[in-house]
């Protein structure tokens, strides 16, 4: 299953990829976080010592993380803010450790962590009109670091908000491989 987490502010690219994947009869969950209430991670340690493996704060994370832990592929769709995710997207990312494995392993000579559940791939689509080469590179590097630290595979795309249908199709094909 592919779970799409999309910050839909001012564009519908997440929805367009979702429709493309649905048309291929692929099982897809779509979560829009534009209006979601995801509280910040306060690094309180509650997910370790009070409610093991679960955030102590009740918010829309309760709907999001179950759909992430049961997916094989995550697709993050986000506006690019100075080479990184939108703050709403990053609030979701900050709490991914609740469905992460606490243990360490060594991959390609470096210490990494891993996720629980079925997840194998992480893709991210960053949206910004006329994005500079430097900013595209910063976003791609961030996603590559996320993929590395969670011991997954995957990749990233950077597109304008009016990306054409041909590119939507290409991204859907890559994500569903």
């Amino acid at each position: 299953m592919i779970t799409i987490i999309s910050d839909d502010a001012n564009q519908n690219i997440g929805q367009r990829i979702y429709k493309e994947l649905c048309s291929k009869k692929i099982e897809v969950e779509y979560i829009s976080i534009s209006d979601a209430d995801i509280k910040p991670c306060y690094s309180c340690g509650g997910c370790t010592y009070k409610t093991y493996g679960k955030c102590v704060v009740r918010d829309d994370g309760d709907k999001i993380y179950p759909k992430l832990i049961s997916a094989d592929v995550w697709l993050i769709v986000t506006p690019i803010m100075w080479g990184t995710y939108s703050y709403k997207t990053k609030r979701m990312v900050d709490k991914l450790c609740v469905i992460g494995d606490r243990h360490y392993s060594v991959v390609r000579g470096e210490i990494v962590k891993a996720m629980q559940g079925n997840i194998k791939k992480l893709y991210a689509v960053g949206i910004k009109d006329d994005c500079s080469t430097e900013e595209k590179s910063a976003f791609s590097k961030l996603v590559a670091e996320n993929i590395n630290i969670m011991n997954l595979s995957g990749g990233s795309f950077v597109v304008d908000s009016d990306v054409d249908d041909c590119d939507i199709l290409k991204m859907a094909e890559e994500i569903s491989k």
Partner: protein
Amino acid sequence: MKNVVIINLSPRKNGTSAMLAKMCKEYLLENEKNVETVDLYSHLEDMGTVLSLVDKADTIVMSGPCYIDHYPADTIYLLEQMSTHPEILHKQNLYGIIQGGMPYVHTHESGIRTLELFCQDCNINYKGAFVMGLGAMLNGQQLDKLINGKKVKKSYLAFLNNISNGEISPESLYKNVQIKMPTIVWMYLAKKMNNTINKELTEKGIDYLQPSPYWKM
């Protein structure tokens, strides 16, 4: 440069980011700067105080932890708020500090890249950063407690001197003190840390093998 604001980007007020911010404050006070410090997470509902301090400063220092390869989410919210108030951005110098649990610098550098891109976009002078691994292990303790504490401290003080003088701080300052070890040592450390985690959880009566509660929701 005379007036400095140091923003603690961590939700924790006494963690490693706050310790580095405190060292920075003390160093700059000794060098006769006016220094204000502010905890970002105390002002998420109303950024007025933080934005006003940014406006009054000629140097901004941002110190924060690395949460999954970048500063915590609300750093991005702060930058958004700053960018929507161009009247408070008047070519201040900006320095970044980021520290995280992983011992490498590449896992933390994306945060710094964002500050650099933000500065290019928003009439601020990006002057460099200090990136530090193993920060989680310190948990707010002094730099001397790090495995490579002496070297890191020396390098960090050189970075603080750059801030005090308004100079560009070179990447080599933090890159040269990064710990490099053979794979077998990392494997040993990973095993040791895993054993420590399991022991601590078991002692607290927590079954670390239990399935995630999110499976049932």
